Structure formats: structure tokens, C-alpha cells
């Protein structure tokens, strides 16, 4: 504990998040089309309950995608996404139930609101990085359920009891179950946001994000407005998470403070790691992991479901430390070998 200062070489501090080359950020065209076809056609063949689960997958996938932009894109570590998700969910719930706003309209409102919240949160977060930023975002996530329970907000939020959200019917008298309509609605929004995100990361802003992620000092030295882009990344990420939260509220038809605890933030984080940090398509693989693997763990052993989940998680991170992206790269190489 002397007063001497620690001098740390750059590899230690800077490379908390590894670089993902731009090319590898998305799926190839062929694979994308197959996946898209599957997403569009499957609901016509399965029961409502499976459609419901697929919608959940899209919603969580969006949230993980947002985290990927923030952490994989701009290198800022966040354990607080559940807070933005909660704000989005409650915004939609309150607007729909207390003010009778149409559900589709609540999405852009919640997206903008969460963007603002994220942008504002990004300001003090500028001075923090690594484990300190993790703690700050963690604080935000733990604060959110308690903020939602506050007495004076109760007339709007419903307090600890939460709010029941009405599920929308298919419009124009379409002969579709509510679940199916909601699924296609979510799918369209997810695809739109996905394409916009890919575009963002390929654009100048995206390059700015990645330069900050790889070496903040060098980026700053090259003239990148680090402060602006870091807060922008937070804002965009929060906005997308907010939209995901809104969709989630409509799908589940219920919001309560207990729905948005730190457990959700940790799950989204795990989804990002399993999917492959920075690899946008992996967000959906990660989402599938966090939705379905706990169910698998439970069917193996009810008493030890947590342990089974942990073991499965270890299994995945041993096999593919870089997440699903690694699987994709390996299969691409295999396909390449076959072609020769």
C-alpha cells in the first residue's frame, strides 16, 4: 500500500472485450435466408404455445442484441440492461392500461424514452470502465425494482401488484390467433431493428464504437469524440432494450417489479456470452439458451435444477469459449473445405 502508482500495459486494461472483425458480424446471405424462411413459416405449423415461446425468443434476442451493441460494439460492460427493459415494459403497460394508447404506438415512445434514459446514464458512466462500470450498471439494475415499488408512483405503476396488460387482437379482422399476430408483429420489428443495428455497426458510428472498444486512447487521439459515441452507444442499446421490454410486456400480458430483477440482467449477459460477444446473430442463440436450458435443467432434476444449469453452462463455455460465433466460424470453415 505504498503511494507508488501502478503502471499497467495496455493489453491488461484495454482488451476487456475482444475485437470481432466486421465481416464476421453477421451471417452469410444463404444462411440468413434459410433462417428467415424458418422464422416466417414455423408458426403456421405449430401450436399456440410454441408460437408464444418463439415470440419470447425474439424479445429476449432483441435485448441481448442491444447488449451486444453496447459491450461487443463499444466495449462497455453492462449488467444493468434489466433496468432499461423494465422502463420499456412499464412505459408500454402504463400507456396501454392507464391512457389507452394503441400498443403499436407505445413502442416508439418507449424506445425514445429509454434512449434518453440510456444516454443520460451514459454521462456519469463515462468516467467508469471495466469492473467499476459493471458495478454502476449493477446498481442501476438493483435499484429498478425498488424504484418501481415506490409508493408515490403506485397510481401509475400498480405498485407491488403490478399491471395486467391487455393482449391485442389481430387487426383488420385477420383470422389469426392473438399469439400468431403478436409473433409476426414482433418478427417484423425484430428484423427491422436487426438490420438497422447491422447498418449502424458498419457505419461510421459503428467504426467509432469499435475503435473505442479496441483502444480508447488511440481513438481519442485520432479525433473520435469518445464521450459522444460512448453515450450514444448506451442510448441506442437502452432504446432497443426498451422496445424489447415493451414487446415483452405485451407478450406476457403482465408487468410487476419482480419481473425485472438483477436475475434478468444476468441472464441477458449470459445470453450474450453464449451467443458470442459482438456477433449479432448469436443474440438469438443466446436467447434460446436462456429460455430453454433452464427448462431442460428442470426436467433433469427439480431439486438440482440450478446445479444442472450451471454444469450445462460450463459445458458450453468450455466447448466454445467464444460462444456460438465460434460454432459458426468452424462450420463455415467446414463448408469451405467441402466446397474445395
Amino acid at each position: 500500500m505504498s503511494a507508488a502508482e501502478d503502471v499497467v500495459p495496455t493489453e491488461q486494461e484495454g482488451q476487456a472485450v475482444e475485437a470481432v472483425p466486421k465481416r464476421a458480424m453477421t451471417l452469410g446471405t444463404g444462411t440468413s435466408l434459410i433462417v428467415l424462411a424458418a422464422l416466417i413459416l414455423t408458426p403456421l405449423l405449430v401450436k399456440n404455445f410454441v408460437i408464444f415461446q418463439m415470440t419470447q425468443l425474439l424479445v429476449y434476442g432483441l435485448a441481448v442484441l442491444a447488449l451486444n451493441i453496447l459491450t461487443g460494439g463499444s466495449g462497455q460492460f453492462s449488467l444493468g440492461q434489466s433496468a432499461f427493459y423494465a422502463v420499456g415494459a412499464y412505459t408500454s403497460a402504463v400507456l396501454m392500461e392507464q391512457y389507452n394508447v394503441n400498443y403499436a404506438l407505445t413502442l416508439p415512445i418507449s424506445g425514445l424514452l429509454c434512449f434518453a434514459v440510456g444516454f443520460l446514464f451514459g454521462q456519469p458512466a463515462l468516467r467508469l470502465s471495466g469492473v467499476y462500470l459493471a458495478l454502476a450498471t449493477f446498481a442501476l439494475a438493483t435499484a429498478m425494482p425498488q424504484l418501481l415499488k415506490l409508493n408515490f408512483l403506485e397510481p401509475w405503476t400498480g405498485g407491488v401488484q403490478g399491471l395486467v396488460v391487455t393482449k391485442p387482437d389481430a387487426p383488420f379482422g385477420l383470422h389469426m390467433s392473438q399469439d400468431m399476430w403478436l409473433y409476426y408483429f414482433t418478427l417484423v420489428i425484430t428484423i427491422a431493428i436487426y438490420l438497422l443495428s447491422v447498418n449502424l455497426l458498419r457505419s461510421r458510428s459503428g467504426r467509432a464504437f469499435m475503435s473505442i472498444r479496441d483502444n480508447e486512447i488511440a481513438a481519442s487521439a485520432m479525433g473520435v469524440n469518445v464521450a459522444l459515441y460512448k453515450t450514444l452507444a448506451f442510448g441506442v442499446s437502452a432504446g432497443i432494450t426498451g422496445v424489447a421490454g415493451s414487446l415483452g410486456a405485451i407478450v406476457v400480458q403482465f408487468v410487476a417489479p419482480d419481473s425485472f430483477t438483477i436475475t434478468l440482467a444476468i441472464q441477458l449477459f449470459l445470453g450474450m456470452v453464449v451467443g458470442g460477444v459482438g456477433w449479432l446473430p448469436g443474440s438469438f442463440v443466446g436467447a434460446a439458451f436462456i429460455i430453454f436450458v433452464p427448462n431442460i435443467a428442470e426436467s433433469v432434476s427439480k431439486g438440482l435444477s440450478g446445479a444442472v444449469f450451471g454444469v450445462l453452462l460450463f459445458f458450453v463455455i468450455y466447448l466454445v469459449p467464444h460462444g456460438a460465433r465460434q460454432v459458426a466460424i468452424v462450420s463455415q470453415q467446414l463448408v469451405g473445405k467441402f466446397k474445395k
Partner: protein
Amino acid sequence: MRSRLRRAAAFAAVAIVFATVGALAQKKYDTGATDTEIKIGNIMPYSGPASAYGVIGKTEQAYFNKINAEGGINGRKINFISYDDAYSPPKAVEQARKLVESDGVLLIFNSLGTPSNSAIEKYMNTKQVPQLFVASGASKWNDPKDFPWTMGWQPSYQKEAHIYAKYILKEKPVGKIGVLYQNDDFGKDYVKGLKEALGEKAAAMIVAEESYETEQPSVDDQIVKLKLAGADVFVSITTPKFAAQAIKKLAELDWHPLHFLSNVSTSIGGVIEPAGYENAQGILSANYAKETADPQWDDDPGMKNFLAFLQRYDSGANKLDGSVIYGYGAAQTLVQVLKMCGDDLTRANVMKQAESLKDFETDTLLPGIKINTSPTDFAPINQLRMMRFKGRKWELFGDIISGELGR
């Protein structure tokens, strides 16, 4: 002539009677019920912050195993399907949909937690699937007009709080009340009930309210604040861990207010013993069920049944854990309802029988407390008896009270 007419009429009458009886005796099923099986769904927090309550689901599974071993209900075996929701409402919605749409259960029984049940209530009522004997003390489950498919089971928290308030008004009308409550639906419901029953005196009598979150390691700070506020009545709306901490801290501070303890934390094995018998003397509470550790039930036939069941079907269970007795009682109530359904195992009939329980007694309810329901009363257990901790057990005193305001 006349006699032939009479005979024909008699014959016709008999034929009609037979036809009707035949129609009545026809078996009627909804999804989840067959000639050999009744599928029952359940959602419990087996993991996560409320995992201590998962033992209720395990007890119920064991009880249904016993029923099946004894021949089932009217010859049908119970298939009990219980899923984990980790106390998360979105997960509860997923599990409820899975049970109803994928597993095809007849009804969902005793699912736990106010948030989780609030999340699935609308769904269950829209789909017209019974959400029976909800494991939560919120008063909202007694609303047959708006939610005819949802029914509670235990006495509501608000009713219990009414009883304490009435006692305080009677025995300590100028008392200064300090309240410690868990900052969630459970705690807030109690506080609401307490204030409601105290009426205009609430503001004057309640000198301090301290809440706590379940993430907090201990409630010692809150107890100190309540003592410093000068309270001489302490209402502890706490779950077992924090209830024990409170009892212990009170002793350490040498503070001896009139101490009320919420019914969920009265388990001798789960709360009083760890906290220290000597520290718990004089604590007041109310109960509707028997306590295993109480020697006064040693020869009680109901308690003997319960202990025999544990020994044979659930030997690993901690018999001093209040949740185990709870699960047993709830399961017994369901079995009664299903028996009453006979061969008409439609969901509508399940609700019909559930709302026709008359003076039904389980093995574990206190003597004199009976389960009663009606189409306008969806609160099966409505009565409690107050009790005081003395020596190493709870001593019941007073009459059986119902929690209605006004009496």
C-alpha cells in the same frame, strides 16, 4: 282401461327416470381428465429467492402419491405436474401456458406467489381453467364476480392484520405501534389491513414503519430505529429468516414490546428454535392449522394421520417446517373437491364443487375451524385463533375469530 293407462304411465315414468339417471351417470371430461387419470398442474418456486417454499410442491407430490397408492380418486390416478417459475412472473406465465396448452392439465392447483398468480390470473380466466387454492394470502383471490375461475385457500393477510389490530385496540388502546414489513405484496397487504382496521386511530398509533428488502442481509438496523421511535407494540410482518433475526435483535436490545408475528413465520422449527425459545416468550400470533411441535396434538387423530403420511411417503421432509403441513392441508382440500366431482370432471364442475364446500375439515386445521365456500365466497379458510408463545410451544387462546371488520 284405467289400469292399463296407469301402467303405461308408470312404465313411462320409470323409463324417463332411468333415462335421466343414465344421462347423469354419464362420465363427462374436459382436457386433463380421463377414466384413469386426472392431470393437475402446479407452479412453485423451486429455485431463486423464494426456493424455501418449493417444499410445499414436494409435499403435495408425496400426498398425491399416497392417494394413488390407496386407489386414487374414484378410481383415477392423479398425475401431478409441477414446474419451477423461480418466482418470476414471466416464467410463471410460460409455465402456466405450458401446463394448459402443452401438458393439457385439468386445473392448476396451489400455485405460489402473488406476482406469479397475478400474472396468470387473466389467462386462466380467459381460458376457463380453474386456478384453484392459490398459495398466497392476498385478498384479491376472493373475487368470484370478476374472476370466477380463481380461488384462494388460506386466510388473507389483511384479515389476519384485522385480528391483530382489533386486539391492540382492545388491550393496548394507547399503544405506540412500530411496524416492520417486507417491501412486497405480502408486507404491504398486511400493513394495509392493519391500517384499515385501526381506522382513524392508525395515524396516531403507528409511530414508525420500517420496510426491508429480501436482498438485505439483516434487519437489525430497522429494529434499532423502531425501538428508538419509542414503540411499545411491535408488528413483525416478516418471512422466517427475518422474523428470527427480529426476535433475536429484540432480545439483544433488551426491548420487550407487545410483539405480533405474522402467521407465515410461526413455525417453531423454522423460526422460534433458531431464534431462541427464551427470546420468543410472549409473542402473539394467529393460526388456522396445527403445529407439529405442539404436544397437545400428540393424540389427535388428524395429526397422527399427518405424521404417518410423512413417515411413509415423505420421510425426508422436515416435519417442523410449516410449509409441509401447509402443503398437506391444501392437497387434502383438493382431493375432497375432486372426490365431490364424481364422474363429472369438467372444469365447470370442478369450480362448482369447489364453491360448495360445507364445513369441511382437514387433518391439520385447528379444531373448530372449517372450510366453507359459496358462489359469492371464494375464501375457503376464513377463521383464525390467536395464540401466544409460552415455554416451548404456542398456546391458543380466545375464540375462533373471523377477520371481518365490524365485529
